[in-house]
């Protein structure tokens, strides 16, 4: 049983704090995805778990062992790098078996393990090749194979699919999910691809600026984002964020919106709020509170994405089912169920939903 625990983990490069106190519990067998914008510290955190970066303060435990001072090779982790990091001068066979060879595993055992891994990853026919003779997807398989044979407690992936094209990424994503099922090992996966995060994760960790913004299952994060950052980050297309009190009187009146949302009552009246509306929750309604001019129409067949600019020039996105016709410049109005709207206070914290 090898869960993983981070306790107020920090990392500074010189004076610059990069990871600013992360607490995290990962259960054995969980598939955890770190997401966040570029530079938020995802890779750094992963590399600290791997032992490739030292930990400025705090504690990382794998299983029930504190591993801060333990060498990477003894942590029971295996990592798949974005650049694959295959040893260019070795055959696929030797690449996969390198760790075992260094560990002094007898040749017969090693051979069996390498062939097992190759079978799992359907790359038996590639064993004699050099990395340079492989396609991107095949290299990725080899990199994963190299991780598998070591039978680690924890797999670490740093954007493993980002060098692949969209179709292959889809395939590999499914394979990773299957692998996770089959091996039942703990996996930590860094990505900034939302779809990967949403589809693979048991648990998503949203990071920003070296701070964990929220931890939860994909749907929890989608339905109940804890703050503006998570709301804007999870979900595609991005959530529409409308500021309420700063809004001048116009086609979208804050009065009208807030009336509908019953926000004018009590302590909240007059404070500046942000309203979050998922593009999918907008419905065309002739007298709806949000109206503006169509700027862009994207027809995907099953749905139609509209980019609409409101009277005060903020743009919102609406995703409508079906293939209704819209002309650019046409006026369109939307409403929404008050219960689907998310409200955030001026510090970006989530308030209980109205309605």
């Amino acid at each position, binding site marked *: 049983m090898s869960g993983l625990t981070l306790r107020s983990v920090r990392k500074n490069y010189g004076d610059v704090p990069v990871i600013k106190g992360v607490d995290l519990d990962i259960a054995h067998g969980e598939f955890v995805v770190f997401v966040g914008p570029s530079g938020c510290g995802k890779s750094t955190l992963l590399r600290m778990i*791997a*032992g*490739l970066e030292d930990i400025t303060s705090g504690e990382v435990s794998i299983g029930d062992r504190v591993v801060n001072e333990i060498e990477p090779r003894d942590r029971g982790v295996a990592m798949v790098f974005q650049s694959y990091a295959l040893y260019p*001068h070795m055959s696929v066979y030797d690449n996969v078996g390198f760790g075992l060879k260094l560990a002094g595993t007898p040749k017969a055992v090693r051979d069996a393990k390498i062939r097992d891994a190759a079978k799992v990853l359907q790359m038996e026919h590639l064993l004699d090749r050099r990395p340079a003779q492989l396609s991107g997807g095949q290299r990725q398989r080899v990199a994963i194979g*190299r991780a598998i044979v070591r039978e680690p407690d924890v797999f670490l992936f740093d954007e493993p699919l980002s060098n692949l094209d969209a179709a292959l990424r889809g395939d590999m994503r499914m394979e990773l999910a299957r692998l996770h099922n089959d091996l039942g090992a703990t996996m930590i996966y860094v990505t900034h691809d939302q779809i990967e995060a949403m589809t693979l994760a048991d648990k998503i960790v949203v990071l920003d600026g070296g701070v964990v913004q929220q931890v939860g299952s994909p749907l929890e994060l989608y339905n109940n984002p804890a703050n503006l950052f998570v709301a804007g980050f999870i979900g595609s297309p991005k959530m529409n964020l409308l500021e309420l009190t700063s809004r001048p009187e116009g086609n979208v009146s804050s009065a009208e919106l807030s009336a509908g949302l019953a926000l004018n009552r009590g302590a909240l009246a007059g404070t500046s709020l942000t309203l979050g509306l998922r593009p999918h929750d907008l419905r065309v309604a002739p007298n709806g509170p949000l109206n503006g001019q169509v700027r862009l129409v994207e027809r995907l067949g099953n749905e139609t994405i509209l980019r609409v600019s409101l009277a005060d020039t903020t743009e919102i996105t609406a995703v409508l089912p079906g293939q209704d016709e819209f002309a650019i410049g046409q006026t369109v109005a939307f409403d929404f169920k008050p219960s689907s709207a998310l409200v955030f206070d001026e510090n970006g914290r989530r308030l209980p939903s109205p309605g």
Partner: protein
Amino acid sequence: MTDITTSLPDAQPERVRLPPSRGSRKTRMAAWLFVAPAFIAYAAFVLAPLCMSIYYSLLRWDGIGEAQFYGLSNYVTVLTDSDLLQIIGNAFQLVLYFTLIPVLLGLAVAAAIRSHMAGRFGTITRTVLFLPQVIPLVAAGIAWSWMFASTGLVNQTLKAIGLSSWARGWLGDFVWALPAVGIIGAWVLLGLCTMLLVTGITKIDPSLYEAARLDGARPWHEFRYITLPGLRQEIGVCITVTVIAALASFDIVYISTQGGPGITTTVPGLEIYRLAFAHRQVGLASALAIVLMVLVLISIAPVQWFTRDKK
């Protein structure tokens, strides 16, 4: 060539082929024109002298008077004369110093400063090590002659640390003169090798080292399985350059020992010069030059083969 295939009998099914390029002859002419300057220079300064040397090596000639055809006798002399054989042997002994020391030290330095590459330490080390390359060989040779002199820095140091029994006139010593010359050459070539190897090591993907650490590699394994194979090309260049520098050495020896004492530090380059211009044996000098060239080629070939990227 094009003409031949198009005029084949009709039995040959007509193939779709690109229209013959309009100025194919003109293009070829242009290509030759571009190659010509380099080729002419090469022919004039490499091929012609080479052919002349081969021709001279078959003569008995003092460089001024009548030349006499002498067959392969000069070659027989080169390959049987014990002095000449010792001189060739000296050159191969120099390879040990000129090649082994710079390549091994260069590798050690490169591996050591790999992780400090971005830092000032790396830059300083590289500059310091490359400095010998900038100093004219003559100056370096003279400086080292002083250091190796009986009252020079080397002996002073030995005395200072209580090893005065080791002190000697290094460059005049029958046993130690050749190693001393070798050290000078190693010092000169170290900069070049380090430079090449340090540059080469920066091209190796750092995540390979990280992957290896996770795979359980110790520093030695990293060196053996990542650094060494990753630097194969650069090591090849270093070995090639330094082996040639050793086998064809002249200047360092000429300045530091002039081949003495006896012929213990005489190398083929120096002997060729002496034979041709002092002893007026142009034929023998040329034969020795040709033999030296062949020896260099033979020594370099396996290195080239070994460092080629095998696909």
